[in-house]
C-alpha cells in the first residue's frame, strides 16, 4: 500500500541539494523511515549532481542498486544531500552549491565528503542517510557531527549507480543517529548485485549484540601519535576503557605502513578520478557548450568552467600519476604501499580482533580554516587505511572536545562488519 509523507525541513545548515516535498513509500522493514541520499548516488527521475555544475540538470534514467533496495524496503527517500564536489574533500566546503554547516556549531564544517548526509541526520531532518566513503567520507562527517557511520567491507554493498570517484576504494554505507539505525539501514543495502562485478554475496542479517567479552582490541601507536590532537586521543582512549570494562582487552600495537598510506591513497584516488571524471564532456548529459569551437578547445573550456578547483587539481594530480614518466614512480609504487597496508592489517588481525583509534585527528575545523590542499589531505590519515585494505570501519560518537563531538573508529577484519557493529553497539550501550 503506497502512503505519502511531506518533507519540508527548515534546512538551516544547507544539508540538502534537492528535497522531495511529497514522498511516497511502501510497506516494508523501513516503511516510512525517512532516508536522505548523498547526491552522488543515482536516483531515477531525481536530479543527481555530485554537487558539481558539470552535472547540473542531469536526471538519471535509472536507480542505483541501493536506491532500488531502499524503495522496496519501504523507505521514504526525502532528498539528495550536499557533498564535496564528486566526493573530493573533507569538509563539504567544495560543493559548487555552497558549504554545509555543522549542526553542532554552524561556524564549523560538518566534515566530508558526505557532510550533507551527516548534517541532515544530526540536525534531525531525517532518520537515516546514505553516504559514500572513499577515504573516510562517511566516517569523518559522522565523527564531526556526532552520529554513527559505517564504511562496509569492500564489495558488500553494490556500487552500481554510485558515481565513481575512486572505484577500488569506495563503498556506499549507512549513517544514523545510533548503531541500531546504522544496522537497520545496512541490512537493507548489503548483498550481492550482479551489475557490480566487485560485489560479494554477503548479505547482512544481524541484530547488534553488545557483547565484547574476550575481544582483543589493538591500539596502533600511529593512531595516537604525531599529528593527532592529544585531547582527541585521550577522549578515544577513555572510550576504549569503556569497552575494557565490558570485557574487552586493549593491546598496544603498531602499523608501520601508515607512513606511506596517505601518499598511496592520494595517488590511487586521484589516478582513478582522473579517468572517471573524463567522461563529463557535456555531450550525453550535463549542460552543453559552444558547438562552434573545436572539440578539445570546447571540452577543456567547459571543464574549466564547470569543475571546481579541487576537482581540477585532483584530475591534474591523477593525470601526473598515470602519465608516462611518472607511472612507475607513483601509481605502481602506490600499489606496493597499498599491499603493505593490507599486510599490516593481516598481521594485526592475527593478533587482535579489532583495531581502535580516533576517526579524525581533530574535531571539526572552522569554516575555511584549512586552505592548503596538502594540509587538508593529511587530515585523512586515520581513515584511509581501511579503504586501502577494503576492511570495514565504523565511527561512533565517544564524547566531546571543546563542545564538539569526537568519533571512535573501530576497524575489523574483512566481512566482519557484524563484529564492528557489535563493538560500536557495546560502546554505545556501555557509555550511557
Amino acid at each position: 500500500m503506497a502512503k505519502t509523507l511531506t518533507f519540508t525541513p527548515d534546512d538551516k545548515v544547507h544539508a540538502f541539494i534537492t528535497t522531495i516535498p511529497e514522498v511516497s513509500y511502501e510497506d516494508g522493514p523501513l516503511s516510512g523511515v525517512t532516508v536522505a541520499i548523498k547526491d552522488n548516488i543515482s536516483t531515477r527521475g531525481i536530479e543527481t549532481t555530485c554537487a558539481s555544475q558539470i552535472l547540473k540538470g542531469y536526471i538519471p534514467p535509472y536507480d542505483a542498486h541501493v536506491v532500488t533496495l531502499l524503495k522496496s524496503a519501504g523507505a521514504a527517500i526525502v532528498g539528495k544531500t550536499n557533498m564535496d564536489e564528486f566526493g573530493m574533500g573533507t569538509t563539504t566546503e567544495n560543493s559548487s552549491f555552497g558549504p554545509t554547516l555543522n549542526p553542532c556549531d554552524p561556524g564549523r564544517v560538518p566534515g566530508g565528503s558526505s557532510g550533507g548526509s551527516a548534517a541532515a541526520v544530526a540536525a534531525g531532518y531525517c532518520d537515516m542517510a546514505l553516504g559514500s566513503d572513499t577515504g573516510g567520507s562517511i566516517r569523518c562527517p559522522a565523527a564531526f557531527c556526532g552520529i554513527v557511520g559505517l564504511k562496509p567491507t569492500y564489495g558488500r554493498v553494490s556500487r552500481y549507480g554510485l558515481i565513481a570517484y575512486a572505484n577500488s576504494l569506495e563503498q556506499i554505507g549507512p549513517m544514523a543517529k545510533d548503531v541500531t539505525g546504522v544496522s537497520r539501514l545496512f541490512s537493507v543495502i548489503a548483498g550481492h548485485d550482479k551489475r557490480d562485478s566487485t560485489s560479494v554475496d554477503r548479505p547482512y542479517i544481524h541484530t547488534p549484540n553488545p557483547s565484547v567479552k574476550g575481544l582483543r582490541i589493538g591500539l596502533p601507536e600511529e593512531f595516537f601519535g604525531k599529528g593527532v590532537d592529544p585531547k582527541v586521543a585521550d577522549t578515544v582512549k577513555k572510550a576504549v576503557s569503556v569497552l575494557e570494562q565490558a570485557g574487552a582487552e586493549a593491546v598496544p600495537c603498531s602499523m608501520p605502513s601508515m607512513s606511506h598510506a596517505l601518499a598511496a591513497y592520494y595517488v590511487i584516488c586521484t589516478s582513478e578520478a582522473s579517468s572517471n571524471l573524463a567522461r563529463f564532456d557535456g555531450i550525453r548529459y550535463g549542460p552543453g557548450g559552444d558547438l562552434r569551437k573545436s572539440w578539445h578547445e570546447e571540452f577543456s573550456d567547459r571543464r574549466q568552467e564547470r569543475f571546481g578547483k579541487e576537482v581540477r587539481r585532483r584530475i591534474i594530480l591523477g593525470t601526473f600519476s598515470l602519465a608516462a614518466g611518472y607511472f612507475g614512480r607513483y601509481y605502481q609504487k602506490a600499489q606496493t604501499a597499498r599491499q603493505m597496508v593490507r599486510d599490516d592489517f593481516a598481521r594485526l588481525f592475527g593478533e587482535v580482533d579489532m583495531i581502535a583509534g580516533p576517526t579524525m585527528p581533530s574535531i571539526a575545523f572552522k569554516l575555511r580554516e584549512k586552505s592548503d590542499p596538502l594540509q587538508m589531505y593529511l587530515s585523512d590519515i586515520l581513515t584511509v587505511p581501511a579503504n586501502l585494505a577494503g576492511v570495514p570501519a565504523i565511527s561512533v560518537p565517544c564524547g566531546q572536545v571543546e563542545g564538539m563531538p569526537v568519533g571512535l573508529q573501530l576497524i575489523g577484519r574483512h566481512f566482519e562488519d557484524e563484529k564492528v557493529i557489535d563493538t560500536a553497539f557495546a560502546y554505545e550501550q556501555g557509555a550511557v
Partner: protein
Amino acid sequence: MVVSEDVRKIAKLADVGVDDREIEEFTSQCSEILTYFEMLDTLPQGATIDRGLVNIFREDEITESLSQEEALRNAAEKEDGFFKAPRVM
C-alpha cells in the same frame, strides 16, 4: 618538483583548462603534493593487489535497452536521433 610547463602539459593531456592566473597556484600546490608522493619511490616495485575475486561473468543474454528518447533525454544538443558534439577535425 614540477614547473608550470609540466602542469600546463598535464592539464592539456587531461583536457582540463587552467588559466594563466591559476597556473602558478596549481604549480606550487602540485609541486608540494608530488614531492610528498615522492616518498613512495623508495618502496620496492611490483606488488599486485589480490582483488579477492576472479572470473566474474554474465551470460550472453539480451536485456532491454533505453528508448532513443530516454537515451537522448539528458543531452543538451541532439539532431535526428544523434548526439551532437563539436567538430573533431
